């Protein structure tokens, strides 16, 4: 299988590899996939609770080159977006950007799931936090 140049680039130079403190109130963590499937992505976001803008994103992935590239790209794309804007990211956008072949589309789906899971986790934290800490929109 030949990879697109962009997939190769993300593989060689992955963006935003790392971890954030998942116990922090402004961090959302999404852990998706399963080792048995050969794909596990952890995507974390730090959101400014006043502006709802994702200021930082980090990822770690167990998976093939396309999975690594999809999650690396996902961290690039969510940075600077508001939480709602990030929710609008669709897996087919990732497929197009990375020129993923049909057999690798599931990698992009997992990346989209990871974004949603991270945002979902962050939102849950805001809901259970003290009222003053929740941004009023």
């Amino acid at each position, binding site marked *: 299988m030949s990879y697109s140049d962009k997939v190769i680039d993300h593989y060689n130079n992955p963006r935003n590899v790392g971890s954030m403190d998942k116990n922090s109130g402004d961090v959302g963590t999404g852990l998706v996939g399963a080792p048995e499937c050969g794909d596990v992505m952890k995507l974390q976001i730090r959101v400014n609770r006043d502006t709802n803008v994702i200021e930082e994103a980090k990822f770690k992935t167990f998976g*093939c080159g396309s999975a690594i590239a999809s999650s690396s790209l996902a961290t690039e794309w969510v940075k600077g977006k508001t939480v709602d804007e990030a929710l609008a990211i669709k897996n087919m956008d990732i497929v197009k950007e990375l020129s993923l072949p049909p057999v690798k589309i599931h990698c992009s789906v997992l990346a989209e799931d990871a974004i949603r899971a991270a945002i979902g986790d962050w939102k849950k934290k805001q809901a259970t936090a003290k009222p003053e800490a929740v941004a009023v929109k």
Partner: protein
Amino acid sequence: MSTDVKIPQELGHTQIPTPKGVKLPIYMDNHATTPMDPRVLEEMLPFFMEKFGNSASRNHSFGWTAEEGVETARERIAKLVGATTKEIVFTSGATESDNLAIKGVAEMYREKGNHIITAVTEHKAVLDTCKRLEKYGYRVTYLPVQKDGLIDLEDLKRAMDDKTILVTIMAANNEIGVLQPIAEIGKLCRERGVIFHSDATQAVGKVPIDVNKQNIDLLSISGHKMYGPKGVGALYVRRKNPRVQISAIIDGGGHERGMRSGTLNVPGIVGLGKACALASEEMSHEAIHLAALRDRLRDRIMNRLDETYINGTMEHRLPGNLNISFAYVEGESLLMGINDIAVSSGSACTSATLEPSYVLKALGTGDDLAHSSIRFGIGRFNTEAEVDYVADRVTETVERLRELSPLYEMAKEGINLKDVKWAGE
């Protein structure tokens, strides 16, 4: 950016310079296929343009010369496995030989019984043939294997009944290199009057095979796994003690004593013969050399990395095979990082489904470790310098990918991954 010219893909950071005498890319996937030995090619060449006759042409020297080439090859193949020339049938390869052996016995001995025994780790050429026979009303038992990859002879004994007409078990496994107890299986089959076929594709020319000492009735042989040409193979069919008969699966002219019709691939056969002759001479010292290289590769990798696991027993194994799982790192991403080295992976990503290697699964290897496996096949033309380079590149890539891996992170934090409730399950 112009995409008219195919730009070679630069992949994988490496701090390791290419050592002297090492040409990239390195081929270390000798279970998939092997480069042809130059001596084999030399032997074949006259049969394309000068000695080009049809070996079945009885009436002129072109045919006789071709026939001579074929018969010399037949002798060489027979010698390598301890057979007589009349027992060697030429085919297009081991897949055809497997089909011929299994379907040929099934059809010929239908009155006697309809039960076939094989193992779950067989090559698809055997498994898919058995599946087809199941559709035709045959009963097939797929024996499990133990953690080390070997079948349990007690399981085989228990599975045999009075309708069993064939046992088919491979001599050496293509993924994990494990050698089944062929002589014992053969003995058991002989005692029970059951025909024993062995797919010896990966074994012939690498470990000693003797159809009489090992009580083998049918044996599949492949050219391109032993430095010979692709598209040619052979099937050994026992003629004495007992006589085994098979129905042909290809009709048309009755070549090969009626067992396999079709004009013979003379150059291919000559090549297969030469490959066997070379193996007869060189196999024993080559095996020692390959095992040393393989052990060097294993030690160089496993001494530097933790949580690496060898799949299959080291004790009964092809000398050039190594199959290692690297925990927390997925196989295809590992291959991507060592793109100047040709090996293969048990990861599902390299197949069309999300299922990892069925052979590794049969060993009881968890799916995650099956996804993390790499198969190395060291062969005649690999060198020590290549082995060292491969070991270092693999190690460096695994280390890099573990930095990227959430599983490695969790394991280091002391989390037992088996206890985690995964979102994707």
